[in-house]
């Protein structure tokens, strides 16, 4: 069956460019999460949506990071004026549960962003 998909799988950007990363959650999943995984580190929480509402964005590292989920399904993580420190794998996860505890989250394969 279809799992969580993310696109593109790899993205190379020049410093200062804007990028948009897409997440397609499992159909019908109400909760959606974004994580950032820097090289050699574990994933770190960025933001959480319940349907179209962004209920927690406490992990977004700066105001250059923006996430949306306008129709409560597909989500886009946008990074403006990318910096080298933004280079990381960006993971998306979805859950059928509201709140969606960690063990109820299904993870996508991630998008590897490299900023030159």
């Amino acid at each position, binding site marked *: 069956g279809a*799992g*969580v998909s993310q696109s593109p*799988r790899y993205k190379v950007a020049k410093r200062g460019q804007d990028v948009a990363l897409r997440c397609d959650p499992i159909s019908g999943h109400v909760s959606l999460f974004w994580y950032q995984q820097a090289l*050699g*580190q*574990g*994933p*770190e*929480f960025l933001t959480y949506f319940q349907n179209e509402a962004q209920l927690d964005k406490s992990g977004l590292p700066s105001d250059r990071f923006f996430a949306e989920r306008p129709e409560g399904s597909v989500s886009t993580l946008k990074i403006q004026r990318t910096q080298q420190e933004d280079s990381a794998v960006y*993971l998306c*996860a979805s859950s059928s549960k509201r*709140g969606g*505890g*960690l*063990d109820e989250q*299904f*993870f*996508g*394969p*991630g998008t590897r962003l490299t900023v030159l």
Partner: protein
Amino acid sequence: AQSVTQLDSHVSVSEGTPVLLRCNYSSSYSPSLFWYVQHPNKGLQLLLKYTSAATLVKGINGFEAEFKKSETSFHLTKPSAHMSDAAEYFCVVTTNRDDKIIFGKGTRLHILP
């Protein structure tokens, strides 16, 4: 506040020998603990979880972990390694108190033929 420390960044074992991946945690509240595996180009996959029930937790693919409160540890073990176990493993702590999810830095497991 909570934190998690994976004591080894790399572990190498021979195929057929036991696996031990170490994890220590710190938590102000009763923790929930998880182990995840990450194969290249695949999403994170839950191996097992501890949520205050039995302290010895059995997971998928023959892995298990034991919660030891006195040692604040949650080490992952497997009696006999298989080549397909080569991957990155993450220990994770959460609590119901604040819903924060803290991942360890990961341990890369290498399996030698």
